[in-house]
Protein backbone atom coordinates (compact mmCIF):
# COMPACT_ATOMS: atom_id res chain seq x y z
CA UNK A 1 0.00 0.00 0.00
CA UNK A 2 1.47 3.38 -0.96
CA UNK A 3 2.36 5.76 1.80
CA UNK A 4 -0.60 7.70 3.06
CA UNK A 5 -0.72 11.42 2.59
CA UNK A 6 -1.12 13.51 5.71
CA UNK A 7 -4.80 13.95 4.92
CA UNK A 8 -5.30 10.22 4.47
CA UNK A 9 -3.52 9.56 7.77
CA UNK A 10 -5.73 12.11 9.50
CA UNK A 11 -8.84 10.46 8.03
CA UNK A 12 -7.74 7.05 9.26
CA UNK A 13 -7.21 8.45 12.76
CA UNK A 14 -10.57 10.17 12.50
CA UNK A 15 -12.31 6.84 11.92
CA UNK A 16 -11.13 5.71 15.37
CA UNK A 17 -12.48 8.86 16.97
CA UNK A 18 -15.95 8.61 15.47
CA UNK A 19 -18.83 7.77 17.74
CA UNK A 20 -20.26 4.80 15.87
CA UNK A 21 -23.63 3.55 17.06
CA UNK A 22 -23.20 0.48 19.27
CA UNK A 23 -22.99 -2.64 17.14
CA UNK A 24 -26.03 -4.79 17.91
CA UNK A 25 -25.58 -8.47 18.65
CA UNK A 26 -26.83 -9.84 15.41
CA UNK A 27 -25.79 -13.46 15.67
CA UNK A 28 -28.66 -14.75 17.80
CA UNK A 29 -31.31 -13.26 15.54
CA UNK A 30 -29.50 -14.25 12.37
CA UNK A 31 -29.05 -17.85 13.49
CA UNK A 32 -32.63 -18.15 14.70
CA UNK A 33 -33.98 -16.83 11.44
CA UNK A 34 -31.69 -19.09 9.46
CA UNK A 35 -33.00 -22.02 11.49
CA UNK A 36 -36.55 -20.99 10.69
CA UNK A 37 -35.74 -20.55 7.04
CA UNK A 38 -34.38 -24.04 6.59
CA UNK A 39 -37.93 -24.57 5.55
CA UNK A 40 -40.41 -23.91 2.82
CA UNK A 41 -43.10 -21.29 3.46
CA UNK A 42 -46.51 -22.77 4.03
CA UNK A 43 -48.84 -21.92 1.15
CA UNK A 44 -51.11 -19.00 1.83
CA UNK A 45 -54.78 -19.63 2.45
CA UNK A 46 -55.60 -18.68 -1.16
CA UNK A 47 -53.07 -21.14 -2.50
CA UNK A 48 -54.41 -24.06 -0.51
CA UNK A 49 -56.95 -26.25 -2.22
CA UNK A 50 -60.12 -26.82 -0.16
CA UNK A 51 -59.49 -30.57 -0.08
CA UNK A 52 -56.60 -31.83 2.03
CA UNK A 53 -53.65 -30.34 0.16
CA UNK A 54 -51.21 -31.80 2.61
CA UNK A 55 -52.16 -35.44 2.09
CA UNK A 56 -50.87 -35.65 -1.48
CA UNK A 57 -47.85 -33.56 -0.70
CA UNK A 58 -46.86 -35.71 2.20
CA UNK A 59 -47.75 -39.01 0.60
CA UNK A 60 -45.45 -38.22 -2.30
CA UNK A 61 -42.77 -37.03 0.04
CA UNK A 62 -42.83 -40.26 2.03
CA UNK A 63 -40.82 -38.41 4.58
CA UNK A 64 -41.41 -36.75 7.86
CA UNK A 65 -42.18 -33.10 7.86
CA UNK A 66 -41.12 -30.39 10.25
CA UNK A 67 -43.54 -27.63 10.86
CA UNK A 68 -41.52 -24.84 12.32
CA UNK A 69 -43.94 -22.32 13.61
CA UNK A 70 -41.86 -19.22 13.58
CA UNK A 71 -44.48 -17.54 15.65
CA UNK A 72 -42.05 -15.81 17.87
CA UNK A 73 -39.68 -13.70 15.93
CA UNK A 74 -36.12 -14.21 17.02
CA UNK A 75 -34.96 -10.68 17.14
CA UNK A 76 -36.18 -7.19 17.78
CA UNK A 77 -37.63 -6.46 14.36
CA UNK A 78 -37.84 -3.05 12.79
CA UNK A 79 -41.09 -1.61 11.56
CA UNK A 80 -40.43 -3.07 8.08
CA UNK A 81 -39.57 -6.45 9.42
CA UNK A 82 -42.61 -6.62 11.68
CA UNK A 83 -44.80 -6.08 8.64
CA UNK A 84 -43.01 -8.86 6.83
CA UNK A 85 -43.40 -11.28 9.68
CA UNK A 86 -46.96 -10.68 10.71
CA UNK A 87 -48.29 -13.24 8.28
CA UNK A 88 -45.28 -15.49 8.24
CA UNK A 89 -45.72 -17.73 11.21
CA UNK A 90 -45.61 -21.11 9.57
CA UNK A 91 -43.01 -22.92 7.56
CA UNK A 92 -42.59 -26.50 6.53
CA UNK A 93 -39.52 -28.56 5.97
CA UNK A 94 -39.15 -32.13 4.87
CA UNK A 95 -36.68 -34.13 6.85
CA UNK A 96 -35.51 -37.68 6.17
CA UNK A 97 -35.78 -38.93 9.72
CA UNK A 98 -38.27 -38.15 12.42
CA UNK A 99 -36.46 -37.37 15.65
CA UNK A 100 -37.23 -39.74 18.49
CA UNK A 101 -38.44 -37.88 21.54
CA UNK A 102 -36.81 -38.28 24.89
CA UNK A 103 -38.92 -40.11 27.46
CA UNK A 104 -40.63 -37.92 30.02
CA UNK A 105 -38.51 -37.55 33.14
CA UNK A 106 -40.20 -38.05 36.51
CA UNK A 107 -41.19 -35.13 38.71
CA UNK A 108 -43.66 -32.24 38.74
CA UNK A 109 -45.35 -31.52 35.45
CA UNK A 110 -43.72 -28.10 35.15
CA UNK A 111 -40.27 -29.63 35.36
CA UNK A 112 -41.13 -32.67 33.25
CA UNK A 113 -42.52 -30.59 30.42
CA UNK A 114 -40.09 -27.69 30.70
CA UNK A 115 -42.84 -25.24 31.55
CA UNK A 116 -40.77 -23.19 33.97
CA UNK A 117 -41.40 -22.30 37.57
CA UNK A 118 -44.60 -22.80 39.53
CA UNK A 119 -46.66 -19.64 39.68
CA UNK A 120 -50.21 -18.42 40.09
CA UNK A 121 -52.48 -16.60 37.70
CA UNK A 122 -52.17 -13.23 39.50
CA UNK A 123 -48.38 -13.54 39.81
CA UNK A 124 -47.90 -14.62 36.22
CA UNK A 125 -50.21 -11.87 34.98
CA UNK A 126 -48.21 -9.32 36.92
CA UNK A 127 -44.91 -10.64 35.60
CA UNK A 128 -45.68 -10.41 31.89
CA UNK A 129 -46.66 -7.43 29.78
CA UNK A 130 -49.73 -8.85 28.11
CA UNK A 131 -53.10 -9.70 29.63
CA UNK A 132 -52.94 -13.44 30.21
CA UNK A 133 -55.87 -15.06 28.44
CA UNK A 134 -57.90 -17.68 30.28
CA UNK A 135 -60.40 -19.93 28.48
CA UNK A 136 -63.72 -19.52 30.22
CA UNK A 137 -64.90 -22.96 29.07
CA UNK A 138 -62.18 -24.56 31.20
CA UNK A 139 -62.34 -22.11 34.08
CA UNK A 140 -59.45 -21.41 36.41
CA UNK A 141 -56.35 -23.49 35.71
CA UNK A 142 -55.22 -26.11 38.20
CA UNK A 143 -51.62 -25.01 37.93
CA UNK A 144 -49.81 -22.07 36.35
CA UNK A 145 -46.17 -21.99 35.23
CA UNK A 146 -44.04 -19.08 34.18
CA UNK A 147 -40.65 -18.92 32.56
CA UNK A 148 -38.31 -16.38 31.05
CA UNK A 149 -35.08 -16.67 29.09
CA UNK A 150 -32.90 -18.65 28.75
CA UNK A 151 -35.59 -21.34 28.70
CA UNK A 152 -38.64 -19.23 27.95
CA UNK A 153 -39.55 -16.60 25.42
CA UNK A 154 -37.99 -13.16 25.75
CA UNK A 155 -41.02 -11.45 27.26
CA UNK A 156 -41.98 -14.53 29.23
CA UNK A 157 -44.09 -17.57 28.64
CA UNK A 158 -47.12 -18.54 30.73
CA UNK A 159 -48.60 -22.05 30.77
CA UNK A 160 -51.97 -22.89 32.26
CA UNK A 161 -52.35 -26.56 33.22
CA UNK A 162 -55.78 -28.20 33.42
CA UNK A 163 -56.45 -31.63 34.86
CA UNK A 164 -59.15 -33.91 33.41
CA UNK A 165 -62.44 -32.23 32.57
CA UNK A 166 -65.73 -33.84 31.49
CA UNK A 167 -65.06 -35.14 27.99
CA UNK A 168 -61.37 -34.26 28.17
CA UNK A 169 -59.27 -37.02 29.74
CA UNK A 170 -55.73 -36.49 30.96
CA UNK A 171 -53.12 -37.27 28.31
CA UNK A 172 -50.75 -40.12 28.95
CA UNK A 173 -48.14 -38.12 27.08
CA UNK A 174 -48.29 -34.94 29.11
CA UNK A 175 -50.03 -36.05 32.27
CA UNK A 176 -52.46 -33.15 31.95
CA UNK A 177 -55.78 -32.80 30.14
CA UNK A 178 -55.11 -29.41 28.56
CA UNK A 179 -52.07 -27.13 28.43
CA UNK A 180 -52.54 -23.53 27.34
CA UNK A 181 -49.24 -21.76 26.67
CA UNK A 182 -49.02 -18.06 25.86
CA UNK A 183 -46.17 -15.85 24.74
CA UNK A 184 -45.87 -12.55 22.91
CA UNK A 185 -45.23 -12.99 19.24
CA UNK A 186 -43.46 -9.79 18.34
CA UNK A 187 -40.21 -9.52 20.20
CA UNK A 188 -39.39 -12.96 21.46
CA UNK A 189 -36.28 -15.04 21.12
CA UNK A 190 -37.91 -18.41 20.67
CA UNK A 191 -39.55 -20.28 17.90
CA UNK A 192 -42.04 -23.01 18.39
CA UNK A 193 -41.78 -25.98 16.15
CA UNK A 194 -43.25 -29.38 15.73
CA UNK A 195 -42.05 -32.40 13.93
CA UNK A 196 -44.92 -34.04 12.17
CA UNK A 197 -44.95 -37.63 11.01
CA UNK A 198 -47.08 -38.89 8.15
CA UNK A 199 -49.88 -39.82 10.58
CA UNK A 200 -50.21 -36.27 11.82
CA UNK A 201 -52.39 -33.80 10.00
CA UNK A 202 -52.33 -30.04 9.74
CA UNK A 203 -55.24 -27.75 9.01
CA UNK A 204 -55.57 -24.01 8.84
CA UNK A 205 -58.39 -22.73 11.01
CA UNK A 206 -59.83 -19.39 12.01
CA UNK A 207 -60.80 -18.51 15.56
CA UNK A 208 -62.71 -15.26 16.01
CA UNK A 209 -60.95 -13.80 13.01
CA UNK A 210 -57.50 -14.96 14.10
CA UNK A 211 -55.53 -17.41 12.02
CA UNK A 212 -54.68 -20.70 13.62
CA UNK A 213 -53.28 -24.14 12.95
CA UNK A 214 -54.82 -27.43 14.07
CA UNK A 215 -52.27 -30.20 14.38
CA UNK A 216 -53.78 -33.59 15.12
CA UNK A 217 -53.34 -37.33 14.79
CA UNK A 218 -50.41 -39.31 16.07
CA UNK A 219 -48.52 -37.83 19.01
CA UNK A 220 -45.79 -35.60 17.72
CA UNK A 221 -42.62 -34.03 18.95
CA UNK A 222 -42.46 -30.47 20.09
CA UNK A 223 -39.23 -28.62 19.58
CA UNK A 224 -38.41 -25.28 21.13
CA UNK A 225 -35.63 -23.48 19.32
CA UNK A 226 -33.54 -21.46 21.70
CA UNK A 227 -32.34 -17.87 21.46
CA UNK A 228 -29.24 -18.96 19.58
CA UNK A 229 -31.31 -20.67 16.94
CA UNK A 230 -30.51 -24.16 18.13
CA UNK A 231 -33.28 -26.70 18.62
CA UNK A 232 -33.63 -27.62 22.28
CA UNK A 233 -33.68 -31.34 21.78
CA UNK A 234 -33.09 -31.93 25.46
CA UNK A 235 -36.55 -30.65 26.23
CA UNK A 236 -38.37 -32.58 23.56
CA UNK A 237 -41.71 -33.78 24.73
CA UNK A 238 -44.61 -35.64 23.31
CA UNK A 239 -47.52 -33.42 22.57
CA UNK A 240 -51.08 -34.33 21.80
CA UNK A 241 -53.49 -32.55 19.49
CA UNK A 242 -52.60 -28.91 19.31
CA UNK A 243 -54.30 -25.72 18.26
CA UNK A 244 -52.02 -22.75 17.79
CA UNK A 245 -53.48 -19.31 17.22
CA UNK A 246 -52.26 -15.77 16.95
CA UNK A 247 -54.42 -13.67 19.24
CA UNK A 248 -53.37 -10.27 18.05
CA UNK A 249 -49.73 -10.54 19.00
CA UNK A 250 -50.11 -13.14 21.72
CA UNK A 251 -49.37 -16.63 20.51
CA UNK A 252 -51.59 -19.16 22.25
CA UNK A 253 -50.94 -22.89 22.06
CA UNK A 254 -53.72 -25.20 23.28
CA UNK A 255 -52.83 -28.85 23.50
CA UNK A 256 -54.47 -31.94 24.91
CA UNK A 257 -56.57 -34.97 24.09
CA UNK A 258 -59.00 -32.67 22.37
CA UNK A 259 -61.19 -32.90 19.35
CA UNK A 260 -60.88 -30.04 16.93
CA UNK A 261 -64.27 -28.70 17.99
CA UNK A 262 -63.29 -28.81 21.65
CA UNK A 263 -60.06 -26.96 20.91
CA UNK A 264 -61.84 -24.34 18.84
CA UNK A 265 -64.41 -23.83 21.63
CA UNK A 266 -61.63 -23.38 24.17
CA UNK A 267 -59.85 -20.92 21.88
CA UNK A 268 -63.03 -18.97 21.23
CA UNK A 269 -63.57 -18.60 24.99
CA UNK A 270 -60.17 -17.03 25.65
CA UNK A 271 -60.61 -13.73 27.43
Amino acid at each position, binding site marked *: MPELSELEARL*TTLGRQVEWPPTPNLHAGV*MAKIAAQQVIPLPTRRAIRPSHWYENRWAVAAAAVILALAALVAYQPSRD*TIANWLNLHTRIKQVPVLTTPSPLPPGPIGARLGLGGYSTLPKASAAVRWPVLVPSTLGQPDEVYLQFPPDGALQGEVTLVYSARPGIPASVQTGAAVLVTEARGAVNTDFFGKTLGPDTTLQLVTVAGHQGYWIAGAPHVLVLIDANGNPRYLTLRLATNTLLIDEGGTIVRIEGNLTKDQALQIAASLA
Partner: protein
Amino acid sequence: MEGRPEDDRDLFARAQRGDTAAYEEIVKRYQQVAFRTAYVITRSAGDAEDAAQEGFIKAHRALGTFRTGAEPRPWLLQIVANEARNRVRSAGRRHQLELRLAEGYRPGGAAPSPEAAAVASEDSARLLGFVNALSDEDRLVITSRYLLELSGEETAAALGIPEGTVKSRLSRALARLRARVEAVPGA
Protein backbone atom coordinates in the same frame (compact mmCIF):
# COMPACT_ATOMS: atom_id res chain seq x y z
CA MET B 1 -2.12 -24.01 17.31
CA GLU B 2 -4.02 -23.98 20.54
CA GLY B 3 -5.97 -20.80 21.23
CA ARG B 4 -5.33 -19.36 17.78
CA PRO B 5 -8.48 -18.01 16.14
CA GLU B 6 -9.57 -20.09 13.20
CA ASP B 7 -8.79 -18.58 9.80
CA ASP B 8 -11.77 -16.88 8.17
CA ARG B 9 -11.47 -19.03 5.06
CA ASP B 10 -11.54 -22.21 7.12
CA LEU B 11 -14.63 -20.94 8.88
CA PHE B 12 -16.31 -20.25 5.56
CA ALA B 13 -15.35 -23.70 4.30
CA ARG B 14 -16.94 -25.25 7.38
CA ALA B 15 -20.02 -23.08 7.00
CA GLN B 16 -20.32 -24.16 3.37
CA ARG B 17 -20.43 -27.74 4.58
CA GLY B 18 -23.44 -26.86 6.71
CA ASP B 19 -21.70 -26.16 10.00
CA THR B 20 -24.01 -23.60 11.66
CA ALA B 21 -21.63 -23.01 14.55
CA ALA B 22 -19.01 -21.88 12.03
CA TYR B 23 -21.48 -19.49 10.44
CA GLU B 24 -22.43 -18.09 13.83
CA GLU B 25 -18.74 -17.39 14.46
CA ILE B 26 -18.56 -15.63 11.08
CA VAL B 27 -21.49 -13.42 12.05
CA LYS B 28 -19.85 -12.58 15.37
CA ARG B 29 -16.56 -11.69 13.67
CA TYR B 30 -18.08 -9.57 10.94
CA GLN B 31 -21.09 -8.00 12.58
CA GLN B 32 -19.29 -4.79 13.51
CA VAL B 33 -17.83 -4.03 10.10
CA ALA B 34 -21.07 -5.13 8.43
CA PHE B 35 -23.18 -2.94 10.69
CA ARG B 36 -20.91 0.10 10.32
CA THR B 37 -20.73 -0.30 6.55
CA ALA B 38 -24.52 -0.44 6.42
CA TYR B 39 -24.69 2.57 8.75
CA VAL B 40 -22.45 4.63 6.48
CA ILE B 41 -24.80 3.85 3.59
CA THR B 42 -28.16 4.21 5.35
CA ARG B 43 -27.20 6.83 7.97
CA SER B 44 -29.67 5.09 10.26
CA ALA B 45 -28.73 2.66 13.03
CA GLY B 46 -32.10 0.89 12.74
CA ASP B 47 -31.86 0.44 9.00
CA ALA B 48 -28.23 -0.58 9.32
CA GLU B 49 -29.15 -3.28 11.83
CA ASP B 50 -31.87 -4.61 9.56
CA ALA B 51 -29.62 -4.49 6.52
CA ALA B 52 -26.76 -6.26 8.27
CA GLN B 53 -29.07 -8.91 9.65
CA GLU B 54 -30.76 -9.55 6.32
CA GLY B 55 -27.37 -9.50 4.65
CA PHE B 56 -26.06 -12.25 6.90
CA ILE B 57 -29.17 -14.31 6.30
CA LYS B 58 -28.91 -13.89 2.52
CA ALA B 59 -25.20 -14.62 2.61
CA HIS B 60 -25.92 -17.88 4.42
CA ARG B 61 -28.40 -18.79 1.72
CA ALA B 62 -25.79 -17.94 -0.92
CA LEU B 63 -22.89 -19.78 0.73
CA GLY B 64 -22.91 -22.26 -2.13
CA THR B 65 -21.92 -19.50 -4.52
CA PHE B 66 -18.93 -18.40 -2.44
CA ARG B 67 -15.74 -19.45 -4.17
CA THR B 68 -13.63 -21.56 -1.84
CA GLY B 69 -10.38 -19.85 -1.02
CA ALA B 70 -11.60 -16.36 -1.97
CA GLU B 71 -11.51 -13.48 0.49
CA PRO B 72 -14.73 -13.74 2.48
CA ARG B 73 -14.88 -10.16 3.76
CA PRO B 74 -15.53 -8.38 0.43
CA TRP B 75 -18.08 -11.05 -0.52
CA LEU B 76 -19.98 -10.58 2.72
CA LEU B 77 -19.76 -6.78 2.70
CA GLN B 78 -21.11 -6.68 -0.83
CA ILE B 79 -24.25 -8.55 0.22
CA VAL B 80 -24.77 -6.38 3.31
CA ALA B 81 -24.15 -3.16 1.37
CA ASN B 82 -26.65 -4.22 -1.29
CA GLU B 83 -29.23 -4.68 1.43
CA ALA B 84 -28.39 -1.26 2.84
CA ARG B 85 -28.74 0.42 -0.56
CA ASN B 86 -32.06 -1.34 -1.15
CA ARG B 87 -33.33 0.06 2.11
CA VAL B 88 -32.27 3.58 1.22
CA ARG B 89 -33.99 3.25 -2.15
CA SER B 90 -37.20 1.74 -0.81
CA ALA B 91 -37.43 4.29 2.00
CA GLY B 92 -37.47 7.04 -0.62
CA ARG B 93 -35.90 9.46 1.82
CA ARG B 94 -32.53 10.16 3.25
CA HIS B 95 -31.58 10.16 6.88
CA GLN B 96 -29.55 13.18 7.81
CA LEU B 97 -27.62 11.73 10.72
CA GLU B 98 -24.01 12.84 10.66
CA LEU B 99 -20.98 11.16 12.10
CA ARG B 100 -19.83 12.68 15.37
CA LEU B 101 -16.74 12.44 17.47
CA ALA B 102 -16.88 10.21 20.49
CA GLU B 103 -16.80 12.11 23.73
CA GLY B 104 -13.74 11.66 25.84
CA TYR B 105 -11.52 10.58 22.95
CA ARG B 106 -7.84 10.78 23.82
CA PRO B 107 -5.62 11.23 20.78
CA GLY B 108 -2.84 8.66 20.58
CA GLY B 109 -4.14 6.80 23.59
CA ALA B 110 -1.77 8.73 25.85
CA ALA B 111 -2.73 11.40 28.29
CA PRO B 112 -2.04 14.67 26.49
CA SER B 113 -2.26 18.03 28.13
CA PRO B 114 -5.83 19.39 28.22
CA GLU B 115 -4.81 22.06 25.71
CA ALA B 116 -3.28 19.55 23.27
CA ALA B 117 -6.30 17.29 23.58
CA ALA B 118 -8.65 20.20 22.95
CA VAL B 119 -6.74 21.26 19.85
CA ALA B 120 -6.58 17.71 18.48
CA SER B 121 -10.24 17.22 19.16
CA GLU B 122 -11.11 20.52 17.50
CA ASP B 123 -9.07 19.57 14.41
CA SER B 124 -10.79 16.22 14.20
CA ALA B 125 -14.22 17.76 14.65
CA ARG B 126 -13.50 20.25 11.87
CA LEU B 127 -12.26 17.50 9.52
CA LEU B 128 -15.30 15.36 10.31
CA GLY B 129 -17.50 18.35 9.53
CA PHE B 130 -15.89 18.59 6.07
CA VAL B 131 -16.41 14.85 5.50
CA ASN B 132 -20.06 15.10 6.53
CA ALA B 133 -20.52 17.99 4.12
CA LEU B 134 -19.17 16.10 1.09
CA SER B 135 -21.47 14.83 -1.62
CA ASP B 136 -22.85 11.35 -0.98
CA GLU B 137 -20.49 9.80 -3.54
CA ASP B 138 -17.39 11.44 -2.06
CA ARG B 139 -18.47 10.85 1.53
CA LEU B 140 -19.15 7.16 0.94
CA VAL B 141 -15.83 6.40 -0.68
CA ILE B 142 -13.79 8.35 1.87
CA THR B 143 -15.69 7.01 4.85
CA SER B 144 -15.47 3.42 3.63
CA ARG B 145 -11.80 3.53 2.69
CA TYR B 146 -10.39 5.55 5.58
CA LEU B 147 -12.84 5.83 8.46
CA LEU B 148 -13.91 2.19 8.20
CA GLU B 149 -10.44 1.20 7.03
CA LEU B 150 -11.79 -1.11 4.34
CA SER B 151 -9.33 -2.33 1.72
CA GLY B 152 -9.69 -1.19 -1.88
CA GLU B 153 -11.36 -4.49 -2.76
CA GLU B 154 -13.71 -4.23 0.21
CA THR B 155 -14.56 -0.63 -0.60
CA ALA B 156 -15.37 -1.66 -4.17
CA ALA B 157 -17.58 -4.46 -2.88
CA ALA B 158 -19.32 -2.17 -0.39
CA LEU B 159 -19.98 0.52 -2.99
CA GLY B 160 -20.83 -1.90 -5.76
CA ILE B 161 -18.26 -0.44 -8.15
CA PRO B 162 -15.05 -1.78 -9.73
CA GLU B 163 -11.84 -1.39 -7.74
CA GLY B 164 -10.42 0.88 -10.44
CA THR B 165 -13.38 3.20 -10.02
CA VAL B 166 -12.72 3.28 -6.27
CA LYS B 167 -9.21 4.59 -6.94
CA SER B 168 -10.30 7.34 -9.32
CA ARG B 169 -13.29 8.31 -7.19
CA LEU B 170 -11.13 8.36 -4.08
CA SER B 171 -8.55 10.53 -5.77
CA ARG B 172 -11.17 13.11 -6.81
CA ALA B 173 -12.88 13.04 -3.43
CA LEU B 174 -9.59 13.55 -1.60
CA ALA B 175 -8.75 16.48 -3.84
CA ARG B 176 -12.09 18.14 -3.10
CA LEU B 177 -11.74 17.49 0.61
CA ARG B 178 -8.19 18.81 0.64
CA ALA B 179 -9.33 21.97 -1.13
CA ARG B 180 -11.95 22.59 1.54
CA VAL B 181 -9.55 21.85 4.39
CA GLU B 182 -6.92 24.16 2.98
CA ALA B 183 -9.45 26.93 2.30
CA VAL B 184 -10.10 27.25 6.02
CA PRO B 185 -7.20 28.57 8.08
CA GLY B 186 -6.26 26.26 10.93
CA ALA B 187 -8.17 23.28 9.50
